[in-house]
């Protein structure tokens, strides 16, 4: 049935011949195999009718055509069973289907034989019972052995897939929640502790104005103010490490432009993306660019560098390159940290830094 070789149309139906209902029509698109099966079925039906006619004309008596019917019926049954089995997926399942087809055919032969001997020659005990039981047992045993592994493996695979889906989903949620939480902490630092310390230094400044003539108290106030300034600077560094203010305020593109300006490498920036990235993706992309440009400025002795941000197939591609001396260690601690950060987002990081010169860092961050 797999081969769809067709007979030429003019073989099947001569010009001007009207199609007959009993005649399989090749022009309807039947393959040779289907044509043959169709022909066998029709011939079997025709023979059954013919034999019954011969018996009727031959003075009737013992109804011998019943045995011919059984033989022809078995042929047709095998044909249907084989077709049914062939539609199963290849492998163990198809083998089991073939076995059950054979079991079914044998059972039909047994039952019909018993039925015919009972009808034609008088009642018997139901002698095929033991044979049928044996056939069913054998078929079941074979099915169990053949499909046992398959069922177990399929169940294991389904469980594994569900687990992977769940882990992927919850990890993404955890990463997103962490990024959102970090931004909330940064905001809280900014609006809370930092702002209150600024207000404190202002009040101390006003107090200091009032005690110009008491050097001891003035000294204490100035000390307190110095401490407050140190605390403010520390909080600012902390907040900047969590999420750079420009990234939080204006998004990735502005933050990357500011980075490039800070390193002053004449960095060319190509942007083909938009805002609306998840905070985790945005932060990761920012820190990739920051680390790459830091490395370029520190080690590469480059004349030129460039940054590319682009949406590609539901991912953000971040490419940073320079024309420096190359030879960057892909396993260095800075790059390893970046890799961990990128992989936590199911992203990939690739470094190409031949000793001949030039370094390209390519990162892909899924953001579907």
């Amino acid at each position, binding site marked *: 049935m797999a081969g769809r070789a067709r007979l030429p149309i003019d073989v099947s139906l001569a010009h001007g011949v009207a199609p007959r209902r009993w005649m399989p029509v090749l022009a309807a698109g039947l393959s040779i195999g289907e044509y043959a099966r169709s022909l066998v079925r029709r011939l079997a039906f025709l023979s059954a009718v013919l034999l019954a006619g011969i018996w009727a004309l031959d003075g009737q008596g013992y109804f011998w055509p019943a045995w011919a019917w059984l033989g022809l019926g078995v042929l047709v049954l095998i044909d249907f069973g084989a077709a049914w089995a062939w539609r199963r997926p290849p492998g163990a399942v198809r083998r089991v289907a073939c076995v059950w087809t054979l079991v079914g055919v044998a059972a039909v032969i047994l039952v019909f034989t018993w039925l015919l001997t009972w009808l034609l020659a008088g009642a018997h005990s139901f002698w095929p019972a033991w044979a049928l039981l044996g056939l069913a047992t054998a078929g079941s045993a074979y099915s169990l052995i053949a499909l046992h592994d398959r069922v177990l493996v399929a169940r294991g695979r389904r469980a594994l897939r569900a687990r992977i889906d769940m882990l992927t989903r919850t990890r993404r949620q955890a990463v997103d929640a962490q990024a959102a939480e970090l931004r909330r902490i940064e905001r809280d630092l900014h609006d809370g502790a930092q702002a209150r310390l600024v207000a404190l230094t*202002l009040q101390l400044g006003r107090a200091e104005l009032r005690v110009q003539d008491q050097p001891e108290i003035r000294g204490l106030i100035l000390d307190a103010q110095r401490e407050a300034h140190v605390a403010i600077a520390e909080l600012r560094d902390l907040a900047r490490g969590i999420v750079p203010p420009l990234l*939080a305020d204006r998004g990735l593109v502005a933050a990357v432009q500011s980075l490039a300006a800070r*390193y002053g490498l004449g960095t060319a920036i190509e942007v083909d993306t938009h805002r609306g990235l998840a905070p985790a993706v945005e932060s990761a992309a920012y820190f990739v660019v920051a680390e790459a440009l830091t490395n370029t400025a520190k080690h590469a002795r480059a004349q030129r560098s460039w940054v590319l941000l682009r949406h590609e197939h539901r991912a953000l591609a971040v490419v940073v390159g320079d024309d420096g001396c190359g030879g960057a260690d892909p396993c260095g601690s800075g790059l390893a940290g970046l890799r961990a950060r990128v992989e936590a987002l199911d992203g990939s990081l690739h470094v190409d830094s031949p000793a001949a010169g030039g370094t390209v860092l390519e990162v892909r961050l899924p953001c579907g």
Partner: protein
Amino acid sequence: MRVVIAEDLALLREGLVALLRESQIDVVAQVQDAPALLRAIDGHKPDLAIVDVRLPPSFSDEGLLAAIEARRRHPQLSVLVLSQYVETAYASELIAGDGAGNGYLLKERVGDVRAFLDALHSVAEGGTVLDRQVVAELLAPGDGATAALSGLTAREREVLALMAEGRSNTAIAESMIVTPGAVEKHITNIFAKLDLSACEDDHRRVLAVLAYLRVARQSDPADGAAAGGHGARGLRPDRNSE
């Protein structure tokens, strides 16, 4: 002097108001967000607006944008922007126009009350005041500016930084404990080495220095033009890429 204050934290806002009133400065309005700031400026026509960069509701840079918008509507208005962190990009945007009377300071500078009031008056009188951290970032080593600035002596760099902060010759002389004459000599040398035309006006001088630093940072020491075709380059005052 009539002042409008835009600051969302009540503690700091009230402290600022008290400080200014003690110093005989008239606080005509105090507001908590950007739209209210623009309304207050339209209504009161103050001389100076003191604006926090981050304001409600989104707490990003709406204070800065409102300050720029207010100056566009009222060119005679002076603006002092306060921020808890320095961004050279914000400083550049603020002084991008022909901005007489602009200031960008870290918030904690309010603690040094006298210097803060000096800066306030300087901005109100049309000067430009930049926080020393902004200047330090602009002058940071490892930048494109380095090559251009390498011809300067350490003393001249110090003077350049103080100039960029908006200090007058007298203030620079005091801070460096030298005579004003020595400062003037340094300044003449700096302008000659950087090929800038000298000017007496403190404000114009700041702008000239800052413009120079910005250009130096953006240009590639080797050959920037070839890479320029890729798109946005360096620090850009316009924001059309967003």
